[in-house]
């Protein structure tokens, strides 16, 4: 079996459950429904040799319904084939976990929960992983400001906001040269 055969059998096996196929530089992407996720994941691992889950990421399409999108990057170690599955979910939906199918998904799903606030149904240990337990925000959501929001958790941690305006490392949208577009220091009058 070659890599092309494998991708063909993916299309054959799941048929109508896959939609919106795109190909880019030899990598195939399919959209799937969140209800089909576990079935597709299990068959991908067991029958289609996608034994390696490289990463799970999430996208916040703020203002679009459904709001979130979760991307699964699968890889077949034996045939060296990539497969990307994209799954749209709404704000109140709780997608199924795949942490029992690929154990590595455990921490990836924790990270998505931490940064985006998406809860995974059936996850054995859905705690925050980067921020501390009790931090009230989900920082990678689009409505969360880059500068952060103040929070306070006595004896554990606190945060303050760090405004960007006028400070270093700000890019101004213009056609001017870098020196003017990205002032590296606060102007002296501030």
């Amino acid at each position, binding site marked *: 079996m070659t890599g092309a055969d494998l991708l063909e059998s993916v299309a054959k096996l799941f048929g109508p459950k896959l939609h919106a196929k795109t190909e880019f530089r030899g990598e195939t992407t399919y959209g799937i429904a969140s209800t089909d996720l576990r079935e597709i994941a299990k068959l991908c691992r067991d029958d289609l040799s996608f034994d390696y889950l490289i990463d799970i990421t999430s996208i916040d399409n703020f203002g679009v319904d459904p709001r979130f999108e979760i991307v699964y990057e699968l890889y077949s170690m034996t045939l060296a084939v990539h497969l990307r599955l994209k799954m749209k979910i709404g704000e109140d939906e709780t997608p199924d976990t795949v942490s029992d199918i690929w154990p590595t998904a455990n921490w990836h799903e924790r990270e998505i929960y931490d940064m985006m606030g998406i809860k995974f149904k059936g996850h054995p240990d859905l705690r925050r992983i980067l921020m501390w337990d009790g931090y009230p925000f989900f*920082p990678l959501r689009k409505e969360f400001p880059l500068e952060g929001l103040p929070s306070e958790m006595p004896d554990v941690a606190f945060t303050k906001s760090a405004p960007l305006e006028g400070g270093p490392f700000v890019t101004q949208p213009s056609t001017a040269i870098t020196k003017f577009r990205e002032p590296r220091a606060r102007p002296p009058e501030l």
Partner: protein
Amino acid sequence: MAEERSTAYDSKIEGNVIFTRLDAAFNWVRKNSLWPMPMGLACCAIELMATAASRFDIARFGAEVMRFSPRQCDVMIVAGTVTYKMALAVKRIYEQMPDPKWVIAMGACASTGGMYRSYAVLQGIDQLLPVDVYISGCPPRPEALLAGLMKLQEKISCEKSFVAQKPELTRKLAGVNT
């Protein structure tokens, strides 16, 4: 020592007796054996290690004894990005250090948050600890850290350490003298 002056010369006791001020003696001892607490949090810690290694050799300034227990340390070198998750831990380690103690903020991140102007990074360790010396650079070269250490030594040699250490005794002595 800068403060040392020649006193009545006596060849019999020469070499055995030194006249100095108490502060100067204290400070001389302190500044030449600073035991650092290596608070290495990011890439600055690599430069800190390079400073301690043979090429730059921080031992020339008496600060080679990196201690991993805060109870044995004099100067905390905050080397790297202090995230909010780590911030209170850094403060707690600082509080476990015995007095007198000093803090060096090494690099842009420890001094100001550096390029991490974000929700996760403390914008300068000076929001939590009293910083004595800031070192610029991202990360600073080992020479810069050594220069910072020498600045700290200068600062220590100007301190009124006896008064700071024994305030009651100093007051009492002053009362007796007047």
